[in-house]
Structures are given as C-alpha cells and as structure tokens.
C-alpha cells in the first residue's frame, strides 16, 4: 500500500473507509455542524429518537439527509435491556437501518455503561438481525461477554461521556486490542483533544466516535479537521509499527570519527 493510499476496514461485513464518526449534539447551529461534517467526512453520524411535535426535528433531518452520511441510531437514555431493545426496534422501523449503537446506562450521574443488561440487550438484538455496536466499559470480562453473545465490534469508553478527559485507562484499552485482534474497536466517549485520538489509534483501534470534543470547541469545523488528521496520523503510526521503547539513550548521530572532543586530542591539548 502506498503512503497516501486509503485503506478500508470491515464492520459486520461492511467495508468502511472513514475512521472518524461523529455525534450531532451540542453544536452551536446546524451550519456549524454541516461544516464540521463536510471537513471530517465521518463514517457515521449518530442520532436518536425522542417525543417531539410533528415538525420538531424537521430541519435537523433535512440537514442529515443532505449530508449523505450513513446514520447510526443509538439507544441513549435507556437503563435496561428491555428499554434498549424496544428503542432499537423502533429505530430500525423508523430509520430503515439495522445499525444500532446500544447504550444501556448504569448510573445517571456518570453515564457509565451497564454490564449484564447491556450484554442481554446485545444478545437479543443480534438474534433479531441487528448490527450491534455496544457502548461499553473497558472491562475485559464485559467485552468478552459481549463478543461471546455475538457482538462483532466493541465501543469502549475512554472516559465518561462528554468529559473530554481523554484515555483514563490506556492499559485496559491496549489489552482489549491485544485480546480481540480481529474485533473492530471504536473508541467511544471521553476524548477532548486530537492527540488523545492519535494515542488510541496508535494502539490499533479502528475508529473513534466524537461529539462534544468537536461541538464544544471554539471552532468546531477546524477541530473536526484536526481530529481527522490526528486519527489518520495514529492509524498510520500503528501500521508503521513504532519502535520499542528502551531505557538507555542511543545517539542518533554516529559518534565515530568525531572531529572535536576526541579523548586523544584533549590529552595533547591539556598535557594529560
């Protein structure tokens, strides 16, 4: 593959090219959101369903359709498997897509993902033919249980939703990459800066999902582009395989035939 050739990856047998997905919340206005999308060219835009008036969401939907970017409905706000399954089925019927980002929240304050209820929801939804993308913790046992019930991708968090704290537990994330080498990993939640996206892509993650890191920046369009470049840099670095870290310094410039500072020259000068 040449240095500038695009590469693709597979998600539920679907070829993907973009490694940056975007949420659509908290943008100052729809024009800013559209500009960010046009620059970042996200592989998915996440959205949800809520009770609204008949015209509520109309301008939003019109914009989403005009961007011509695949949509990824979520089950945000669900606190049980039953709720998540129900909202997933409503979303599939409404949006006519099998893709679903499954969120089952355990705690209202931290928005930390549930464990057993999430696993149960994913198991049922996979049996119903959904392409399930579980928003999960970085806990190995939960991730293993999710793959055991048929999840063919995982979306572990970097930090709590919307915090911008970055990768709170890089060790766990690296272990997930090592433990599930063939499962697409999409870092979901908690990123705040492009360098954090680079870091997780350097670990070998397949993509990142971003929302507030872009929408809450002062210049969302510029930040979207910065994240796009950061994701690309991290992925390229992963493919290039970084050098192993080592404790001792190694001179970059050869020390042989040094024109000055040679011990023998010094000995002659100072008569030692």
């Amino acid at each position, binding site marked *: 593959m040449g240095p500038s050739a695009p590469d693709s990856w597979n998600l539920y047998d679907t070829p993907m090219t973009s490694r940056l997905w975007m949420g*659509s919340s908290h943008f100052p206005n729809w024009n800013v959101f559209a500009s960010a999308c046009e620059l970042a060219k996200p592989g998915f835009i996440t*959205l949800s369903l*809520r009770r609204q008036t008949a015209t509520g969401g109309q301008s939003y939907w019109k914009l989403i359709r005009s961007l011509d970017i695949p949509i990824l409905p979520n089950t945000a706000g669900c606190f049980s498997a039953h709720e998540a399954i129900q909202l997933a089925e409503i979303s599939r019927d*409404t949006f006519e897509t099998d893709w679903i980002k499954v969120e089952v929240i355990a705690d209202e304050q931290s928005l930390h993902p549930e464990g057993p209820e999430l696993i149960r929801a994913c198991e049922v939804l996979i049996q119903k033919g959904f392409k399930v993308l579980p928003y999960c913790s970085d806990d190995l046992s939960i991730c293993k249980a999710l793959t055991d019930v048929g999840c063919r991708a995982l979306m572990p968090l970097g930090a709590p939703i919307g915090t911008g704290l970055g990768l709170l537990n890089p060790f766990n994330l690296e272990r997930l990459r090592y433990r599930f080498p063939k499962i697409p990993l999409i870092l979901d939640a908690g990123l705040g800066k492009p360098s954090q996206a680079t870091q997780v892509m350097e670990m070998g993650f397949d993509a990142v999902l971003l929302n507030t890191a872009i929408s809450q920046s002062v210049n969302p369009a510029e930040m979207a582009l910065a994240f796009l470049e950061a994701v690309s840099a991290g992925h390229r670095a992963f493919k290039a395989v970084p050098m192993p870290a080592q404790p001792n310094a190694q001179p970059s410039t050869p020390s042989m035939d040094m024109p000055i500072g040679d011990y023998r020259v010094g000995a002659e000068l100072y008569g030692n």
Partner: protein
Amino acid sequence: MSKDSNIQIQINHKPTHLPYSMTLAQWVEHQTLELPVALILNNQFIPKGEWAQHLLTDGDHIDLLSPIQGG
C-alpha cells in the same frame, strides 16, 4: 370514510380533534411530515407497516417520536 367530528385524541399529551375518522396511516398523511416518525399508540409501538390497520378512536393517545441529535 365516516364523518365524525367528536373524535378527540392526544398527540404527545396535547389534545387534538380529528376532522373525520381515520387510520394511523391517514393521520400521518394528513400531517404532511417531511421526516421519519415513530408512533406509539396507547403505549404500544406500531410499526409503519401496520399503520393502515389501526383506526383511531376517541381517547386514543399517540406518542410521536422523531429524529433528534445524539452522540
């Protein structure tokens, strides 16, 4: 289609009079919506393919869901 101006339903808890007796499918058509919606009739989700089979009656409650931004 029978005329019946006495049918009052609730849309997202807001009372609405139907101009005539109609199915869910006809009600949606009447709204000229330009976005996908989900309908929950009396706490039961009704898939799009079944809208034409549900005749609205007085006192029915529809929860109308539509797309909203999400992360």
